């Protein structure tokens, strides 16, 4: 899952970024409105966290511009403006959520995750694939009732594949959504992560839940009983 933070406070950028990364979400950051708009138009983010008072181009202008273009990325406004009028304006202009500073980091992360689920049309926080269950709210994976521990990045990768079940997800897409700019083009971090996941979730002797499509990517296969 990839999130863009458009916030001119470097500290907030840093700490929100850290919190989202801890939650297994890839993060891009910018401190000015013009760059924020550029990135939003050119990269497909799952959620954009948008401050309103930005240099060069304010948050509401970015919001209007994106919605006028037909961009449907979920946007969470994060701002110190707390009046009802400000909230109403923000939501009417097309924001999906509105959070006032100061805020609980846990709440921000939970709202971002809720918006991510919404972007995949998932109402239930639990993804069930056969006897395999991913609780996206609690970030717990279980198979046949047995809990499986995965590091955050691997969990996010598996969640991403589960959200795109029975669809081929390319390596590039995984890199963009899970690892953003941290991945070297020549690295095999994705392969390595898939390998780790398979070891944890696959049952010995049974075909892997994650199928490799050579030259194309990976697919979480759902087998109907």
């Amino acid at each position, binding site marked *: 899952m990839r999130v863009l933070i458009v916030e001119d*406070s470097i500290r*907030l950028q840093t700490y929100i970024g850290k919190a989202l990364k801890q939650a297994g979400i890839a993060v891009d950051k910018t401190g000015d409105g013009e760059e924020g708009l550029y990135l939003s138009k050119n990269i497909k983010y799952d959620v954009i966290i948008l401050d309103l*008072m930005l240099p060069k181009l*304010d948050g509401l202008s970015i919001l209007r511009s994106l919605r006028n273009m037909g961009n449907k990325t979920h946007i969470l406004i994060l701002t*110190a403006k*707390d*009046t009802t009028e400000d909230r109403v304006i923000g939501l009417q202009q097309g924001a999906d959520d509105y959070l006032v*500073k*100061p805020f609980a*980091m846990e709440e921000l992360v939970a709202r971002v995750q809720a918006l991510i689920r919404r972007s995949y049309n998932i109402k239930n926080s639990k993804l069930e694939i056969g006897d395999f269950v991913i609780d996206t709210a609690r970030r717990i994976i279980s198979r046949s009732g047995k809990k499986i521990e995965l590091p955050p990045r691997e969990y996010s990768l598996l969640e991403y594949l589960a959200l795109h079940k029975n669809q081929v997800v390319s390596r590039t897409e995984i890199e963009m959504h899970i690892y953003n700019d941290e991945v070297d083009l020549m690295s095999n971090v994705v392969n390595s992560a898939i390998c780790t996941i398979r070891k944890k979730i696959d049952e010995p002797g049974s075909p892997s839940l994650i199928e490799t499509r050579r030259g194309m990517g990976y697919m979480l296969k759902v087998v109907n009983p």
Partner: protein
Amino acid sequence: MKSIQGKLLFQLIVGLFVMYGVVGFIFYHVVAHFLLNQFDEDLVTWVDTISEMSDFEDEETDFHFHDTAFDIQPFQNDIKYYQVWNKDGKIIARSLSLKEADLPLVKADLREHKFIDLELPQEIKVRAVAFSYINCRPIFEEEPFNIFPKENCNRLFIVLAASRERVDDMLGITLIFLAGTGVLLSVSSVFIVRGVVVSGLFPLNRIAEKTSSIDAADLSQRFPATEFPEELQPITERLNDLLERLDKAFLRERRFTSDAAHELRTPIAELRALAEVGLGIDVNQLDDPRPYFKDTLDIALQMQCLTDSLLTLARTDAGNLPVNVEEINLITVLNETWKKFEKEAKKRNIVHSLVCPDNTIIKSDKSIIAAIITNLISNAVSYSSENCTITMSIKRVQDNHYFLLSNPAKNLDIKDLEYIFQPFWRKDSARSDQSHSGIGLTLVKSYCQLLNISASAEMPAPDIFEMTLRIPAI
């Protein structure tokens, strides 16, 4: 009566009644005067006719008019009366129409006509003319030829009267007409006046309606100048002025709330985010915790500075800031303050110039003056363009020292000067630079008011900002 409509209605209707009454009264009397004048003229014509046509046979015994004397227009069909007296007051002739009654003897001078209104028995109203003339019996037979010897002349007093029924009837009709018209006018004027007043007051109702539709949430509405009558334009202009001021005040309030929220909430949000993320980190995996503490300290200092500024502002505005007056050399304060910002100025290649007289001693509170100068120089160094000169000067004009500080300010507009002293106002709407909170110039203004110093900001040229302090000299 508190209703304009009611008051107007009452006043207009009463006014109309009074006016009608006065006009009717005048009209009636004009008509009466005209009719009586006409009647009197007719009486005079009759008198002249009588005088020419009368016979005098025997002054003692007989005096009679010709019959034709009574056949005179316009009295042809009226009842006529006459009575004649000699110079001794003896009645020598009277009309039969008088019956038992007598006309009064009125001794008019020769060539004089006296008109009188009389009432005869049986309530017969007549108008009479009294006149006199000398009637002489001519003698043609005797010589010398003296047609009118004195001894044959007799002064006669005559009163002629005719019924004034015709005149009275016409006056009666006139009165009835006036009364009838009056009633009709009264009734119709109530409706007409009411309609005119309601229609006349309609623009006022429109103003009331439009005013009631104005919401505090949207004060952008104005009363169009051309939509209302001339007489109401002063009201609409004042209302528009008031709305403009209210709109500005609300905008100022909203802006202040928004700016204050940002300045106060952002550091707290940063602190909270920092703390929550820090608490979530596994201490064993943390290389160096110092960045967290550094950020915590920076935020704390920022908030301390903001809190101090706000508290000082509150105290200054309340007049609770102690003021210790002493002699201060303004040049010394300027130079000392500039030294604090020299390093920062050098980084941006900013220099300063100072032009001042030898003696710039003032009596004031040194720490507050220093705080004012610090704020001004801090702003100038922070917001001037790079590679420029900040110009400072002091000049003495009569009983005041004028301190001027001028610096290039590319991003500032003359319209910004309206807001420059308002709390939390900053040109940068994003408020990204956290070293300034927008309280500095508000504090300067407040300090100046406390010390009886006048502070003003101008843009004498595009992109040049100038601050002037007028400080009372010793």
